[in-house]
């Protein structure tokens, strides 16, 4: 009797589901491919996409974001910023529990914020946070020393995982074994990690969002060799390949039936490819020399030919899709006459062979197109304005980082992330106070402009979005004019996945946001 009833029941249920406008179906496994090996899974003390992608599945955060930079309720069902901007109140979703069954309380939120403030590499993110009050179990009040609009983006899944105090509270958090066997609060529960091979997550049956996640199981397979990852995706061994960045790989996969290849989302990272000058070294200490090189470079050749037209243009320090970006800046359209005139003006006259000076171009190892190919392009292109380029290769990242951070360079290619709010990822490149020898991705250009310092300081504290954008507009105009950096493009961050997968995470944080909405059609 029972056996007889079950199919009937199932049919009725699925009919009901159909009439409710094809509700997402439960079940299935999602295999994700990545070249990156996470050091561990605790995003509270480790940044970078490798950890963030895992951490955002395992841990929930106060807020999440859509594709248009709008905050959405997540672990906080609502929040208010105080009138004076000196506190932010979070109201937590009732009934939310950690994977071990313990309730998620405001004390855990306070503990997480404190831990991130003390341990996370992005120290500017929570620097103004003075304390977190916990008037009741479900209310957390973040007290600030000054208004801190960046806090809203800092509460993103990738940057503020809520970790259980009863698991991570004891001893040195860096050495906590739960970093590798996390107990989380997010849509998926950690199952196992085979170091360097894969990690496996399973559905959190008690997730605080009713009915989600849909996937039974998620496996992230680590394939260190990009060529192998592309082949695996092409064959269908991999269902979802987030953060694809090589134009050749993307082009290849665009031609494969049954795969969807899109550049939607991922704006939050704002990975800008640029050329950075050592502005403390002659002749690059002269803005006219830097501008001249800007006018000599044909960005459309770089973006359309070298990068196969798969990148979007970048014209300033803030990623163009950000609500804080402006397009009222010098765009450095190619103009060789102007470049020559600027160099003449700067006193860099050509010698008998037509050579003005020789410069070394370093490049960030990793990307062929934006590395060696770009450097070689500069060699032929800049010869036209009398600059002789010597290309210097670095065998690996530490070699390059050492050269740049010890100021042993003229010009280098680089790829630097915005990480959402300018306070988190932009300021570091331009602040005089952040000229720190030996620290990569600090102000290694040694650029210093008091007005820029002032503007960045004011904008960091300006709670009114329009007024804030106005301050950043002036900052962007000055920096583009001074040209310590020449902006080339926004690095491609493509998502590639199989047809049949729906509601992929294409928000500003892409795959570094919860995968609770993904389902197989």
């Amino acid at each position: 009797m029972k056996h007889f009833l079950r199919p009937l029941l199932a049919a009725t249920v699925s009919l009901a589901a159909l009439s409710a406008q094809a509700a997402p179906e439960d079940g299935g496994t999602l295999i994700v491919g990545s070249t990156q090996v996470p050091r561990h899974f605790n995003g509270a003390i480790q940044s970078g996409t490798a950890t963030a992608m895992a951490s955002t599945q395992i841990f929930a955060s106060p807020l999440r974001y859509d594709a248009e930079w709008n905050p959405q309720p997540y672990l906080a069902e609502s929040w208010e910023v105080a009138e004076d901007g000196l506190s932010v109140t979070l109201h937590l979703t009732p009934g939310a529990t950690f994977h071990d069954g313990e309730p998620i309380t405001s004390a855990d939120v306070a503990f997480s914020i404190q831990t991130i403030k003390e341990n996370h590499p992005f120290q500017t993110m929570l620097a103004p946070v003075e304390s977190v009050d916990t008037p009741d179990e479900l209310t957390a009040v973040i007290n600030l020393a000054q208004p801190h609009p960046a806090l809203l983006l800092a509460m993103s899944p990738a940057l503020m995982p809520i970790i259980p105090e009863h698991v991570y509270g004891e001893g040195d958090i860096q050495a906590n074994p739960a970093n590798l066997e996390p107990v989380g609060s997010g849509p998926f529960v950690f199952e196992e990690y085979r170091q360097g091979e894969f990690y496996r997550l399973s559905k959190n049956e008690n997730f605080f969002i009713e009915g989600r996640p849909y996937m039974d199981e998620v496996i992230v397979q680590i394939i260190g060799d990009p060529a192998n990852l592309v082949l695996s995706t092409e064959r269908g061994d991999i269902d979802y390949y987030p953060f694809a960045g090589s134009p050749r790989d993307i082009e290849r996969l665009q031609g494969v039936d049954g795969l969807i290849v899109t550049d939607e989302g991922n704006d939050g990272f704002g990975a800008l490819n640029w050329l950075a000058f050592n502005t403390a070294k002659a002749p690059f200490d002269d803005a006219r020399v830097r501008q001249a090189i800007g006018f000599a470079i044909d960005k459309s050749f770089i973006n359309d030919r070298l990068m196969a037209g798969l990148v979007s243009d970048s014209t300033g320090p803030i990623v163009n899709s950000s609500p804080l970006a402006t397009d009222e800046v010098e765009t450095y359209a190619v103009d060789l006459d102007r470049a020559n005139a600027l160099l003449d003006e700067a006193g860099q006259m050509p010698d008998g062979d037509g050579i003005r000076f020789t410069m070394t171009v370093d490049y960030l190892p990793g990307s062929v197109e934006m590395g060696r190919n770009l450097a070689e392009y500069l060699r032929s292109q800049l010869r036209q304005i009398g600059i002789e380029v010597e290309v210097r290769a670095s065998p690996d990242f530490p070699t390059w980082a050492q050269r740049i951070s010890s100021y042993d360079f003229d010009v280098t290619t680089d790829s630097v992330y915005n990480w959402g709010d300018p306070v988190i990822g932009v300021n570091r490149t331009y602040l005089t106070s952040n000229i720190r020898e030996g620290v990569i991705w600090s102000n290694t250009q040694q650029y210093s402009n008091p007005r820029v310092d002032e503007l960045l300081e004011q904008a960091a504290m300006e709670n009114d979005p329009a007024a804030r954008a106005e301050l950043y507009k002036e900052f962007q105009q000055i920096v583009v004019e001074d040209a310590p950096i020449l902006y080339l493009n926004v690095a491609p961050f493509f998502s590639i996945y199989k047809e049949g997968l729906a509601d992929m995470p294409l928000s500003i944080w892409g795959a570094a946001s919860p995968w609770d909405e993904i389902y197989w059609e």
Partner: protein
Amino acid sequence: MSRYLPALSRLAQALGLLLAVIVLNFLLIQLAPGDPVDVIVGEMGGASEEVIALMRADYGLDKPVLTQLAIYVGKVATGDFGYSYYFNQPVLTLILQRLPATILLVLSALSIAVLAGTLLGIFSARRPKGLLSHAVTIFSLAGYSAPVFWTGLMLLILFANVWPIFPVSGMTNIRGSGGPVGAVLDVAHHLVLPAVTLATIYIASYSRLARASMLEVLGADYIRTARAKGLSERRVVYGHALRNALIPVVTMVGLQFGQLFAGAVLVETVFNWPGLGRLAYESILRRDYPTLLAILFFSAVLVMVANELTDLAYRKIDPRIGGASRRRRRAKPQPKGASA
């Protein structure tokens, strides 16, 4: 007492060699620019000066190099290989996790290379001017000359893409393989391409060696005697000649063990094989000193063990060897030892 002297002196030699391996590798790694903290900070997308200083102090990287070396040697002497900076795990755990995959790969490749190489060598020795012999020469030299990662990529494209009969990546099917028998078959299926790739370079060495050695042996007096006795050609070749022709091949196995490990680094990277080689590659890029040093240490130990086993194998094959150690040494080229 004096009976044990040779064994003891060999042991002392081995320990001295291991110490040299540790010290040399430690100093060599220091020569590479940058340290693990640079890498960790790089992958985190930057960090403040304080965080960086804290990490350096945590890892003991703020101490002078020689102090670091002394601390390291002291720890290794007690069996403590330290904690991986990058991978956040005890190095020994990491290595023990990866070792089986590499041993499986290297031994499979070695077996393929020795079997295929020797057989090809013998076939071509029987008709040294024949078509087959030339074909073997060309095939094995091509395999020998091609860079191993290129061979790997070509095999990948051919057998995993154009004609997809083998998996491209890893050691097991991540979607599951069903039962213990299925699991073994699954691993074997994944093993084919990497093992063949790694073997191609060495097939040439063995086939050339077996061919030359076979030609030499076939010209020896006792073979003429065997033929004069009226033995079948088959018995002459496989019963009498082969055993003697094999001695140089065995030497080669011992010698090449270290090189196989080096080749495994590339093959494992191309095929995403979860072994020590890939771990070594990842550790070099990340300046993960403890992991890399321990891998080199274990490789050295494995090569030394392989050399000892080679010595034992000699005695089995050739009863003339096995007396005084001086005579044994003259009978074979000295293994190069730990040059993994």
